[in-house]
């Protein structure tokens, strides 16, 4: 399971960071401090944490509307993220993108995206770039179960297979596309079965077990790095909240929700750490406290930051045309 204590610590740290960030985002949204749509990753922390623990800083990821977890796991800066959620000038996107559009070119984060399925096809281009530059980087493409019925899932996996691109397609099967349970949006149980259609490997793992995710994706990432082409990895997990904040999620059966809460990835991990992993309760708490402080600092940074100036609204549309877009 765990290679060593440092690695376990890192995994837990990432998961806890996501949990803490999301819990704060949830509350700040409720307080009206974060505007727009917010899609939380609570309950799915093990997926991003496990997968990205195998990545190098120069590897790439593409993400979705539910992207905070991926970005944190790939090393995104909490301050710039939180500021972006607030719509502040200091945010990753200078306040222009918000929760659904955070990107960090310097860390290989090729963006969260508000269009379901967009990341899949963008990842093929990242893969092509790696292929042509003959590096041993990889691109991990995260997406949800619902998105696997979208056009781009199909076109992109096929293209990646035919061109043998260094991509790992990670499906976070959290059971729902908004209100639509998997059983009503596709007739198959395992999304991984769709790999057959592209002649690539498809594997399933427990998405609430960070070690399982880490191991399963490690192999797929290795394949990609070695030039053996793409893999479809399915992580079974659960969205503990509504689709977006504000959705009471009455379509989720109570028993289902309760059963999954019992399998909470953070609880599982912290229990394992103290029961089997050789961590003391104090060691775990120290991580929790560190993370609390980090996120509190991020929130303060966001709150203290200025809003973008009106002038900035016409910047970044083009590399070279600015004033002309102001005309309305």
């Amino acid at each position, binding site marked *: 399971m765990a290679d060593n204590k440092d690695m376990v610590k890192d995994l837990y740290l990432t998961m806890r960071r996501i949990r803490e960030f999301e819990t704060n985002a949830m509350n700040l949204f409720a307080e009206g401090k974060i*505007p*727009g*749509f917010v899609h939380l990753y609570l309950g799915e922390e093990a997926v991003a944490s496990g997968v990205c623990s195998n990545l190098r800083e120069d590897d790439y990821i593409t993400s979705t509307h539910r992207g905070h977890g991926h970005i944190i796991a790939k090393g995104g800066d909490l301050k710039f993220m939180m500021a972006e959620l607030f*719509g*502040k000038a200091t945010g990753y*996107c200078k*306040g*222009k*993108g*918000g929760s*659904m*559009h955070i990107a960090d070119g310097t860390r290989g984060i090729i963006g969260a*995206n*508000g*269009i*379901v*399925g967009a990341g899949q096809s963008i990842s093929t281009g990242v893969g092509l770039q790696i292929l042509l530059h003959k590096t041993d980087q990889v691109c991990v493409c995260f997406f949800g179960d*619902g*998105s696997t*019925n*979208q*056009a781009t899932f199909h076109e992109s996996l096929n293209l990646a297979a035919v061109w043998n691109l260094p991509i790992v397609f990670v499906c976070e099967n959290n059971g729902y*596309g*908004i*209100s*639509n349970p998997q059983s*009503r*949006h*596709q007739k198959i149980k395992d999304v991984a079965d769709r790999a057959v259609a592209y002649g690539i490997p498809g594997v399933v793992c427990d998405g609430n077990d960070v070690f399982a995710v880490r191991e399963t994706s490690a192999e797929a990432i290795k394949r990609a790095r070695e030039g053996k082409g793409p893999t479809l990895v399915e992580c079974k997990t659960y969205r503990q909240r509504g689709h977006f904040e504000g959705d009471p999620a009455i*379509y989720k059966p109570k028993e289902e929700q309760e059963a999954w809460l019992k399998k909470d990835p953070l609880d599982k991990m912290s229990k394992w750490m103290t029961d089997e992993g050789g961590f003391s309760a104090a060691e775990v708490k120290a991580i929790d406290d560190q993370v609390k402080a980090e996120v509190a600092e991020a929130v303060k940074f966001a709150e203290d930051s200025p*809003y*973008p100036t*009106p002038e*900035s*609204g*016409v910047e970044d*549309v083009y590399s070279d045309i600015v004033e*002309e*877009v*102001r*005309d*309305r």
Partner: protein
Amino acid sequence: MKKMMTYSEGIREGMSAAMRKDPDVVLFGEDVGMFGGCFGVSAGMFDEFGPERVRDTPISESAIIGCAVGAASTGLRPIAEIMMMDFLTVAMDQMCNNAAKLRFMTGGALHFPMVIRTAGGAGVNAAAQHSQSLEAWVTHVPGLKMVFPSNAQDAYGLMLSAVADDNPVVYEEHKAMLAMESEVDLDEGPIPLGVGKVVRPGSDVTIVAVGNMVHQALAAAETLEKDGIDCEIIDPRTLYPFDFDMVANSIDKTHKAIVVSEEVKRGGYMGEISAQISENLFDSLDAPVVRIGALNTPVPFSPALEPIYLPNAEDIVKAVRSQG
């Protein structure tokens, strides 16, 4: 019988009335069923009409519109929902190459009575992929009609006509107006497509405004009234076919025109209307037509930027004053 109703309820009442009348009318789209639609517009319809006629789809916009095309060509009158207007992009082919053109291309052998509902517009900090106004794309396509109600009564009456129409009709709902209440008389029935409405009669300047901009125009008119400027506001309600006669009659009286929409200004449909006015009413105009739209940028997220992106009453006031 008049009662207060939200815009959202107006849309729902229109769909429900159409479905009660004709069993071939069906509604499908993402989360339109038990969930009642992403914005709650179809809430309760699943219960009334059942899972056969109110159907959730997978996240497959091309299939949604293609399905409507096939269904319409063989006897149903589908109402297909594309959750956000921005997602028309993933269904443009089915909408523009098939729904719109197949009647013509088959020499009338097939026809396509179908409605594509979609939520457009900004103002809720939903950023650039969930806030667009794409009227220009739709109205540019021969074979499509398009409506865009600005209040609950029109939402109701235009829905009835859209469903009854034998051509594909794109029905835009502005997400920032959904909760807006106004008085509705359900007995008034269908509003014919292609007939605009003088929302405010006036004599000094003609303001053509669509969707949410109708309300900005009304606010501007109040301000301008204090200056002694009397605005006539026209809400075309249907973008195509467009009630140009109503606009021309108004300009014959006012000799000045302002056109306003929430679209990105460059290439917006209001540019088409401005061009038509300038080309056809050249001698009648005392001042250049002024067009008001959004900034030529993607829709920004930040609460500090989105209001600057959007056109508003103040812009209209300024424009009217600039015409002297």
